[in-house]
C-alpha cells in the first residue's frame, strides 16, 4: 500500500476498543464448576455448564466484585442494580444457545483509562461501559481432520467487557491503551492478561475521517488480534486500507473484518446486513442483584495500589526517572517487590538499579517469575547499605555476595563476613599493602615514576589482588597515588 505522509496527514483515525478479560474467579460465572485453564477437555463441566434441560444459572458474586474493582480503578460509575440479559445465537460451543450478559444496564459506566500518546503526553481514553458476561466454549478445528471438537471447559467462565469511547486516534495509542488495561487487570488480580491464551481479547472499531469533517467515517470492526503487537498492526493496516479506499473513491462498507497475523492484513468476515440479530431480552432466570454503596466502599478500601499511582510516586517523591518508574511499574509483582525493598532503604535509585539490573537478569537467565524469587527484599536493602557505607565494593557485592544470596537468601553482611569480603578503608592497613606492592614490583614502580602513567592500572590491580578485593578502591586509589608520588 502506498499512501504518502501528506495524504495520511489529511485524515484522523477514530478508534474504539472492546476488550474482553477473563476473570480469575475460582469458579465459573453461573455455576460452581472450576474456572481453570488447561484442564483436560470437558472436565470442568456440570449440568449447568452443559446447559442441560431444566438447569438454571447460579450467580457467582465474585464476578460482580471483580467487575467493581475494575470500575473503581477506572473511576466509573457503579450501577446499584445488576440486571442480566440474554444474547441469543446458535453456535456449537454455546450450549444454552444464548449467552448471559448485560445489555442496557452495564455494571460500570463512564470513567477512563490514562495512557500516553505517541508523543509521551498523558491522554485519557474514556470508557463507555464495562459489563459482565460469560465466555463460550472452544471449538477446536485442527485436531480431528473431519470433525470440529468442542471443549466446554471455558463455557461459563466470567468475562468483563471493557468498551472504550472512540477516543483513540492512532495505532500506537491503541497499543498503549491495551497495555494499560492489561496492566490494570493484572494489578487488580482479576485477570492474568494473557493474550496468547485468550484470557485478554481485543476487538477494534476503526474508521477514518478528514480532519475537518463533521461526521464519522464508515466503521469497521476488526477481530482476532491475539497479541498487543497485532492490535497495533491490524489497526495500522486498517487505517491505511481505509484511507487508500477513500482516496481512490471507493465506498467503504460497515463490516466485520478478520486480522491475519501471518501477512498483517484484514479480510472481510461479514457485512452489517449479515450480522446476527441477537434478540437481547432480560434474563428471566436471574433476579437483579443489588450492589450496596457499603459493598462498593469495602471493595474500594481493599484495592491494591495502581500502576499510575505508583508511577507518579516514583517520579516525584522518590526522584526516579520516567524510564525507571515505567520499568518497575510495568509488572505488578515487580512493583510490589520494589515497594518492599524501599521499606528498608532510602537509596531508591540503588534499589531501582538492583531490581532492574541484577535481579531482572537473574530472573531472565533462570526464566523465573519474580514471585518465584527466593530473595528477601530486606536483604537487598541490606546489600545496598553495605555498599553505601563502603563495607562492600559494588563489584564484590554484585559478583560474589549477590550470587550467594540467591543460593540461600542469607543476610549479605553474614555472607560477606564469613567469606572475609568486608572491605577495609583503614589507612594503616591499606598503606601496609601498598608498601608491599611497591616492594614486590620494583621495575614497574620505577617505570611509573619515570612517567609511564598507564602502569597505574597494573599497580592498582596488584594492590586489589593483594587485598583480595577487600580494600575500598576509593581510599586505596587515593593512598596509592600519594605513596607513589612520595618517592
Amino acid at each position, binding site marked *: 500500500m502506498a499512501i504518502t505522509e501528506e495524504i495520511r496527514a489529511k485524515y484522523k483515525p477514530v478508534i474504539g476498543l472492546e476488550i474482553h478479560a477473563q476473570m480469575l474467579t475460582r469458579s465459573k460465572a453461573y455455576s460452581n464448576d472450576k474456572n481453570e485453564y488447561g484442564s483436560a477437555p470437558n472436565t470442568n463441566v456440570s*449440568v449447568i455448564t452443559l*446447559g442441560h434441560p*431444566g438447569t*438454571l444459572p447460579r450467580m457467582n458474586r465474585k464476578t460482580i466484585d471483580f467487575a467493581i474493582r475494575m470500575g473503581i480503578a477506572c473511576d466509573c460509575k457503579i450501577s446499584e442494580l445488576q440486571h442480566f440479559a440474554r444474547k441469543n445465537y*446458535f453456535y*456449537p460451543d454455546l450450549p444454552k444457545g444464548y449467552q448471559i450478559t448485560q445489555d442496557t444496564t452495564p455494571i460500570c459506566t463512564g470513567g477512563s483509562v490514562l495512557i500516553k500518546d505517541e508523543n509521551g503526553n498523558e491522554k485519557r481514553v474514556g470508557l463507555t461501559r464495562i459489563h459482565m458476561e460469560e465466555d463460550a466454549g472452544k471449538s477446536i478445528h485442527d485436531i480431528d481432520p473431519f470433525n*470440529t471438537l468442542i471443549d466446554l471447559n471455558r463455557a461459563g467462565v466470567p468475562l468483563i467487557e471493557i468498551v472504550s469511547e472512540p477516543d483513540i486516534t492512532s495505532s500506537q495509542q491503541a497499543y498503549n491503551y491495551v497495555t494499560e488495561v492489561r496492566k490494570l487487570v493484572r494489578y487488580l488480580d482479576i485477570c492474568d492478561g494473557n493474550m496468547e491464551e485468550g484470557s485478554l481479547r481485543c476487538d477494534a472499531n476503526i474508521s477514518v475521517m478528514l480532519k475537518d469533517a463533521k461526521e464519522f467515517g464508515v466503521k469497521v470492526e476488526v477481530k482476532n488480534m491475539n497479541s498487543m503487537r497485532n492490535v497495533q498492526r491490524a489497526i495500522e493496516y486498517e487505517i491505511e486500507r481505509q484511507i487508500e479506499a477513500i482516496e481512490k473513491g471507493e465506498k467503504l462498507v460497515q463490516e466485520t473484518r478478520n486480522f491475519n497475523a501471518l501477512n498483517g492484513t484484514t479480510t472481510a468476515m461479514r457485512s452489517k446486513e449479515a450480522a446476527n*440479530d441477537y434478540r437481547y*431480552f432480560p434474563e428471566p*432466570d436471574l433476579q437483579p442483584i443489588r450492589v450496596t454503596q457499603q459493598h462498593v466502599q469495602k471493595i474500594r478500601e481493599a484495592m491494591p495500589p495502581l500502576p499510575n499511582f505508583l508511577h507518579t510516586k516514583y517520579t516525584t517523591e522518590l526522584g526516579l526517572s520516567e524510564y525507571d518508574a515505567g520499568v518497575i511499574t510495568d509488572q505488578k509483582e515487580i512493583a510490589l517487590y520494589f515497594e518492599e525493598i524501599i521499606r528498608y532503604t532510602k537509596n531508591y535509585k540503588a534499589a531501582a538499579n538492583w531490581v532492574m539490573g541484577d535481579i531482572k537478569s537473574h530472573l531472565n537467565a533462570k526464566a523465573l517469575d519474580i514471585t518465584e524469587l527466593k530473595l528477601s527484599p530486606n536483604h537487598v536493602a541490606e546489600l545496598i547499605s553495605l555498599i553505601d557505607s563502603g563495607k562492600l565494593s559494588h563489584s564484590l557485592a554484585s559478583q560474589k555476595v549477590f550470587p550467594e544470596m540467591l543460593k540461600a537468601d542469607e543476610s549479605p553482611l553474614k555472607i560477606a563476613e564469613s567469606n572475609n569480603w568486608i572491605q577495609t578503608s583503614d589507612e594503616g592497613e591499606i598503606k601496609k599493602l601498598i608498601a608491599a606492592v611497591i616492594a614486590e614490583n620494583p621495575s614497574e614502580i620505577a617505570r611509573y615514576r619515570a612517567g609511564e602513567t598507564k602502569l597505574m592500572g597494573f599497580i592498582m590491580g596488584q594492590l586489589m589482588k593483594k587485598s583480595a578485593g577487600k580494600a575500598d578502591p576509593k581510599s586505596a586509589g587515593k593512598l596509592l597515588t600519594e605513596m607513589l608520588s612520595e618517592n
Partner: protein
Amino acid sequence: MYHSFDEIKAALDHGTSVESITKHYLKRIDEKKHLNAFLEVFADSALAQAKRVDEKLKNNTAGRLAGVVIGLKDNLAYKDHKVSASSKILEGFVSLYTATAVERLIAEDAVIIGRLNCDEFAMGSSNENSAFGNVLNPHNEKMVPGGSSGGSAVAVAAGLCTASLGTDTGGSIRQPASFTGTIGFKPTYGRVSRYGLLAYASSFDQIGPFANTVKDVALLTEIMAGKDEFDSTLLQEDSKNFLPAFDTTRKLKIAYIKDCIESEGIDPEIRSRIFEIIEKLRSLGHTVNAVDFPYLNQMIPTYYVLTTAEASSNYARYDGVHYGYHSSNAEGVEDTYKKSRSEGFGEEVKRRIMLGTFVLSHGYYDAYYTKGQKVRRVIQNKTKEILTNHDFIILPTTPTTAFEIGANVADPITMYLQDIFTVQANLSGNPAISLPLGNHSNGLPFGIQAMGKHFDEAGLLSFSDYLMSNCK
C-alpha cells in the same frame, strides 16, 4: 383405590407394605394403559424405592410421604431416568440430575412411579400436542383431559398414583384439574424451585401438585417449597405449614371478577355454579364483591407475546448438537440445527418459537415485548389492588368443560382462549388453585378457581379446604 394420603397411612397402619401399594398402582397403570397417561413406568426404581421405604418404616425412620406414590410430568428431571417433555427432540435423553422439588419428595420417602404424558414442552391445553399421542379423559374417553399437564391430571383422576406433579405456565395444572375433577394447585411464582423443570417460559413456570384432597396438596407443596441456591428467582425463605386450620370466626372479603363471569364464552352452568358458591359464601357471613378487571382481552395476547419470547430462547439449547434428537439427514452444523429442530419439534412448539423469535426481533421488540412487559405490570398492579382490598378472588377455572378430542386442533386461537381465566395468576405470579366443585349436566366435572395473595399459600389452601367442605 387410595384416595388420599390418609388412606395410604391407614393402609400402612394395617400392615400393608409400600411395596404392595406400589404394585397396586403398577397393576392399575397397566389396566388403564389405553388412557396413555404414562409415557414410561419406572417399575424397577419404584419397587426398589418402595422396599427401602418399607425398611425405614420398620425402623420408624420413614419420612412424611412414606407410602405415597407419585407420577412426574415429563418435564421434570429425575436422575438416571429419561425426560422428554413429550418431544421427539429429547429422544433418548437421560437426566444426569434430579429436580429440587422431586428430590425433596424423595427425601420424604415418596415413591416415583413414572413420567406422565403432557403437551410437548407444556405448550397446549388439551394434551393433543404430545409427540406420544393423546391422553384420554377418564370421565369420558372421547374428551381431552386438558393440558398441558394432561397425564398428571388423569393419573390422579384414574387412581394411577396417589398424587402427581404438573407445571403451570398459563393454566397447565388448573385447567386439566378442572377437566378431570382433581385438585390442581399452582403456588406463587418463586415458591417452588424451578431447578430441574424443563423451562417453557421462565418467568411464568411453576411446579405444583395434583391430588384429591387439599390436605395432600398442601403437604406436597410444603415439602417442595423453600429456599434453593439453584434458583435465584425463588423466595429464599424456609417452608412453613401450608394448611393451618381455617378460622371459622373470621369473615372474609372475597372478590369475583365481573368481566370473567359475564364474558360471552362461558358455559351457563359454570356461570350459575359460580353464583351459587357466591351466595353460599354470603350466607356464611362473608362479603363477596364484584370487581372490574378491564384487561381480559389483553390477557391472552400479553401471555403469548411474553411466554413465546422466553420459550424461543429457552429452546435454543435443543439444537441437535449436544444431546437428544440429531437428524441423520444433516450435513454440517447449520444443516444439523435446521433439520434436527424441524424434525424434532412438533407444530405447536415451532409455531411458538417463530412467534417468540419474531417478538424479540430487532425493530419489533418495543412494539411487542416491551409493550407486553408493560401490560403485564398493569395486570400485576390491578391484581394486587384487588387482593389488597380482598382476601381471595374466585372465578371459574375454565370457560367450558372438557371438549372433544380434535375439536379445537385446527384453531389455535380458540385453543388459546382455554387459558383465559388461568393466565392472570401466571402473569401476576399469584397462587391459584382449581377445586372440583362443579358437575355439569353433560356428566363432566369442572373446577372453581381461587386465587390468593403472593406467598399466602397457607391462607389460600385453608380457604380451599373450607370451600371444599362448605360448597360441595
